[in-house]
């Protein structure tokens, strides 16, 4: 079974600075997908960014980018120019190519300070 580990339960960053959230995973599959989801205090789960394992290029969505290291099974999220609205819990998730479901890490609570 796949496992997803987020080793940082809580992090904080000053507004306008850059922060990196860590995620590692364990799988024997070669083709899979990785995600970061954001859950703000409103409770709504929002897909932030998606990475396909067979693509070497790291995904980017505006201020959000990932560092995907397939051999190390690492998938970190970098948030640049942090904004107060980035305050949320962030979940890393894994989906095998044919699994039909996603497995989530335990989450990292990020606080952006003014």
């Amino acid at each position, binding site marked *: 079974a796949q496992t997803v580990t987020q080793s940082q339960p809580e992090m904080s960053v000053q507004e306008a600075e850059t922060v990196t959230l860590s995620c590692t995973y364990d799988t024997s599959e070669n083709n899979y*997908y990785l995600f970061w989801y954001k859950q703000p205090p409103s409770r709504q789960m929002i897909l932030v960014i998606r990475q396909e394992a067979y693509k070497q290029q790291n995904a980017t969505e505006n201020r959000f980018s990932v560092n995907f290291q397939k051999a190390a099974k690492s998938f970190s999220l970098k948030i640049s120019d942090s904004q107060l609205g980035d305050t949320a819990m962030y979940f890393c998730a894994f989906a095998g*190519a044919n699994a039909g479901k996603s497995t989530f890490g335990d989450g990292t609570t990020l606080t952006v300070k003014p």
Partner: protein
Amino acid sequence: DTAVSQTPKYLVTQMGNDKSIKCEQNLGHDTMYWYKQDSKKFLKIMFSYNNKELIINETVPNRFSPKSPDKAHLNLHINSLELGDSAVYFCASSQEVGFSGYGYTFGSGTRLTVV
């Protein structure tokens, strides 16, 4: 237009009662899911459905019974509610059958409190 809508958003009920949570998606997605988020915010899959067909049924007590009348709807009925059932229940959908590589669209969650 809300893509994945759940009702109710909040549900407070007594132990032993039976309750239902409803979910509807207007995205035309093929697969729908129920996830449970416990008090520590851990997210665990419970069920997934493709149209009326149950695809995934994780280790969930028999008191939980999902029902999918059509591709756009997935409901969750819970019998004989227990204190440990208190959690946030999320409905989600994904584009293709048996493949969640595009990621999920989540509903806003239902906070269930059993007293």
